[in-house]
């Protein structure tokens, strides 16, 4: 019996020592999940770096109540892997909240996991409306907009430019199907005509058969609802078949990786994305300069600022209510006009931020240029087929 007391006292003593040895600030873990490998990894790495930047800046601030640590995990843009890492994160009691997902198909699979485990998350890049609107999970929030608005603006814009017929190519994940659904609806309502719709698998390599059919249908525009790697293949095979139509993408191809993969063939590709370009955002300049200072090696990409904003929202909530999942979730739900790099964030009852502004992009000389500032808008250059 006596021996047990000795063990107990020793144990308590050791615990005491360990407690003293640690930093005087409590460490709080925040998860980041995104595609760190695979075709869309450029966006994932940009997002991770941006979230990491938020954490580093907070840790450098002496008035911070806690020391933050980012746990970055790779969902490979695959729903099955996404659910695995989401479960890992959600089951880890030390992780208080998460900045999660670029790929919509992955986010659709993981929201149930976050709800089950009660982990508050802020989506930083996935645009499918159903992620926030398809459920009433209080855990799920999103700082970026949905694909509904961008497709409405896209339809308006393209019709204004005088295009009349479209062939739609979309990947058959929830993401691609969503783009197809919303764009088709808007463009038909507004008087455009869709001559053919082609669902392709997201990892498909050969599009020659589909594109030959598209060539036969001879549309003004090829609308592509999918992510950058598939887009690169489609655009380059389009060229090889001599198809002279405008290539219109979505926010899924707004990434430097898309331009790198295509080289000169990227010229004149159109895309639409919610939110203003980073450098035009209220805190954009300082975000970019601080990002440069950290020497990350990869650019922040199109959604970096959103990941930065999501991480900051979580940090602010933790600073206010402490590292407790439930309290952080309630704090996030109550977000109204919270100042952030992407502008004031307000979550509606579904945890969705309202991002009204949609930016129109065109690739000019190997860069994503805002349409209004491009030589295409001023009439100096012409899009193919016009």
């Amino acid at each position, binding site marked *: 019996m006596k021996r047990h007391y000795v063990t107990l006292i020793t144990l308590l003593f050791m615990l005491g020592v360990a407690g003293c040895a640690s930093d005087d600030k409590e460490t709080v873990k925040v998860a980041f999940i995104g595609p760190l*490998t*695979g*075709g869309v*990894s450029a966006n994932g790495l940009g997002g991770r770096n941006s979230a990491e930047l938020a954490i580093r800046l907070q840790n450098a601030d002496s008035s911070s109540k806690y020391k933050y640590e980012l746990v970055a995990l790779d969902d490979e843009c695959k729903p099955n892997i996404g659910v695995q890492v989401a479960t890992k994160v959600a089951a880890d009691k030390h992780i208080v909240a998460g900045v999660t997902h670029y790929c919509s198909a992955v986010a659709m699979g993981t929201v149930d996991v976050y709800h089950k485990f009660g982990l508050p998350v802020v989506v930083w890049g996935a645009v499918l409306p159903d992620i926030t609107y398809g459920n009433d999970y209080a855990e799920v929030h999103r700082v970026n907009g949905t694909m509904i608005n961008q497709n409405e603006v896209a339809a308006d814009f393209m019709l204004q430019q005088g295009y009349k017929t479209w062939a739609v190519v979309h990947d*058959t994940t929830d993401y691609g199907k969503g783009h197809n659904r919303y764009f088709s609806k808007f463009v038909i309502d507004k008087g455009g005509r869709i001559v053919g*719709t*082609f*669902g*392709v*698998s997201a*990892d*498909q*390599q*050969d599009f*020659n*058969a*589909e594109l*030959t*059919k598209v*060539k*036969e249908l001879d549309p003004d525009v090829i609308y592509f609802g999918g992510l950058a*790697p598939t887009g*690169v*293949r489609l655009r*380059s*095979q389009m060229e*090889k*078949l*001599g198809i002279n139509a405008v290539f219109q993408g979505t926010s899924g191809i707004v990434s430097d990786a898309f331009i*790198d*993969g295509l080289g000169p063939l990227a010229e004149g590709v159109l895309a639409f994305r919610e939110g203003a370009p980073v450098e035009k955002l209220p805190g954009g300049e300082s975000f970019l300069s601080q990002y440069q200072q950290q020497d990350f090696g990869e650019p922040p990409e199109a959604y970096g600022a959103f990941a930065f904003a999501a991480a900051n929202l979580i940090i602010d909530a933790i600073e206010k209510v402490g590292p407790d999942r439930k309290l952080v979730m309630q704090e996030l739900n109550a977000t109204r006009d919270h100042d952030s790099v992407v502008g004031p964030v307000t979550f509606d009852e579904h945890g969705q931020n309202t991002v009204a502004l949609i930016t129109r992009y065109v690739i000019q000389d190997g860069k994503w240029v805002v349409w209004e500032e491009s030589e295409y808008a001023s009439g100096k250059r012409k899009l193919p087929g016009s």
Partner: protein
Amino acid sequence: MDLGFIAQYLLNGIVLGVIYAMVAVGFTLFFGVLDVIKFSHGDVVMAGAFTALATYAGLELLGLGYPTFAAVFITLAGIAAMALLGALLAKFLILPLRNAPPLNTLLITLMFGLALRESVRLFYPNGSNPKPFPQLLPDLSLSLGNLELRFDSVLLIIVGLGAIIGVHMLIERSRIGLAIRAVAQDPETARLMGINFERVVLATFGLGSALAALAGVTNGLYYSEVNFGMGLLLGVIGFSAAVVGGLGSLYGAIIGGFLFAALQTIGAVWFSVPAYKDVFAFACIIALMAWKPTGLLAAKSAERV
């Protein structure tokens, strides 16, 4: 439908068919000679493409990236490396298991393929991302009505068909070919006749893997992109093509390859959702196998007793 479009579909299908046939010929060679199914074959295709890609990076560093020279050089480098890999694989993994149940060979090659795939993913710089493959063939094309006849497609078809015919001639006309055929018919008797059994097996695996490397480089040049997982589907398609044509028969493999490409193209043209084209093609293969279990051109049954 316009004649130009029909020709375009045909041309697309033929390029695919050549690639599939090159992979299928490997499966059929290995099965014919040693009665083994080598499931790492698809990954050898991928490794061949990556070897070529790495060689190109080396050439560029040396300032020797002239397109035509580089295209020939990297193709040969890929072929040589994979021929060696195939022979080593036969010597150290397949021959030692010759007397073990066939299931073991099947498993060990499956595992080897997995290891090869994951090594490229982990150790090739940035290997988990799709890699742009250099466009080394001249960018010439001829518009004949609605047909876009590209010089590179035509060249790839000629080279691919040439390689398959070359392998066929080698087997039918040369001394080593005679030895391969002898071993395929009856290994014991062939040995009694003084044929070096091991050397014939190594040569066969080298030959099949070289063809796989050519398929990989062709694939890279055609799509301007390679990725570590490309061998997976190519392997399955090549195997299906070989089986449906009749494992062990060279003509069967070629017919199987072109048949699969034709089915895929028809599937893509017929269905409003082209993502179903693989489902359609594989379903047809299943139906064909139910109808002719030994393949369209079965190997002569005398070999199998």
